[in-house]
């Protein structure tokens, strides 16, 4: 059972925005997680800052709980095949579409990029339809 938590949502969101602004102001780079990870994998020249950002993301789940945040999500291992299929789709799709929730969703909207706004509407729409079918469709 999950509850609507607008305040922690706004605060957490502001931190995500702050980190995105800081990455642009310091490194001159856009905080798009799929793009940063993709760049590490495809042997681009500037791997170091990308790896540092990813290590920072992972470290957050270890340092956060010491500061009072929740830790990594606990998930049931009963449906590993679903996570494998979902992971493949997310990996392939974010590279083909050039971005994910952070690059298109947060940074793209902040830049008022029509390209990113279209991408965000498409992936949100596809996700909403998928959830509707999985949870309420197929005669359920």
């Amino acid at each position, binding site marked *: 059972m*999950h509850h609507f938590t*607008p305040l*922690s*949502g*706004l605060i*957490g*969101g502001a*931190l*995500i*925005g*702050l*980190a*995105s*602004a*800081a*990455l642009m*102001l*310091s490194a*001159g780079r*856009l905080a798009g*997680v799929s793009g940063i990870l*993709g760049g590490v994998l495809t042997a681009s020249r500037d791997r170091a800052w990308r790896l540092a*950002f*990813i*290590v*920072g*993301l992972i*470290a*957050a*789940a*270890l*340092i*956060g709980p010491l500061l009072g945040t929740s830790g*990594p*999500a606990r*998930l049931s291992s009963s449906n590993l095949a679903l*996570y*494998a*299929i979902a*992971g493949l*789709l*997310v*990996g392939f*799709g*974010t590279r*083909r*579409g*050039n971005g994910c*929730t952070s*690059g*298109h*969703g*947060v940074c793209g909207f902040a830049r008022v990029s029509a*390209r990113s706004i*279209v991408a965000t509407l*498409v992936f949100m729409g*596809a*996700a909403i339809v*998928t959830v*509707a079918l999985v949870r309420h469709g197929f005669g359920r």
Partner: protein
Amino acid sequence: MALIFASFGCGLVFGLGLLISGMTEPEKVLGFLDFFGEWDATLAFVMAGAVIVAGAGFALAQRRGTPLFAAKFSWPSRSDIDAPLVTGAALFGIGWGFSGICPGPALVNLAGLAAPMIVFVAAMVLGMFGYELWQRRKVAGEAAGEVVVLTQSDG
């Protein structure tokens, strides 16, 4: 070296933001995506907070000449809306809807070393490699003389 520390710090704050907002919990994200269930609007508030602060920061960046620790600002260079953008976003959306996990939260959650997250991240990396291989074969197939325009990714 300053660039590496700054980048690590940005990743850390980004991850803390995801944890505080609840976006590392797939159930909470699915609660937003489930329009026909008990809808949880939290994700919209996370996006609003993030977009407002990032927008202010980007406006500041656009008024500066160069970033603090790099030679130039690398803004995404493309503004066209093409088929790969739409099909890629659709595939990503389906995977996101199945799992409630997108790349940022996947990497934050990897710290817990839980089997579902390891499987998800491994598959995500494989999907990225798969795309890269497919692209390279396609480019190799389309006559070597063709000019490949390298553009800055959107994110």
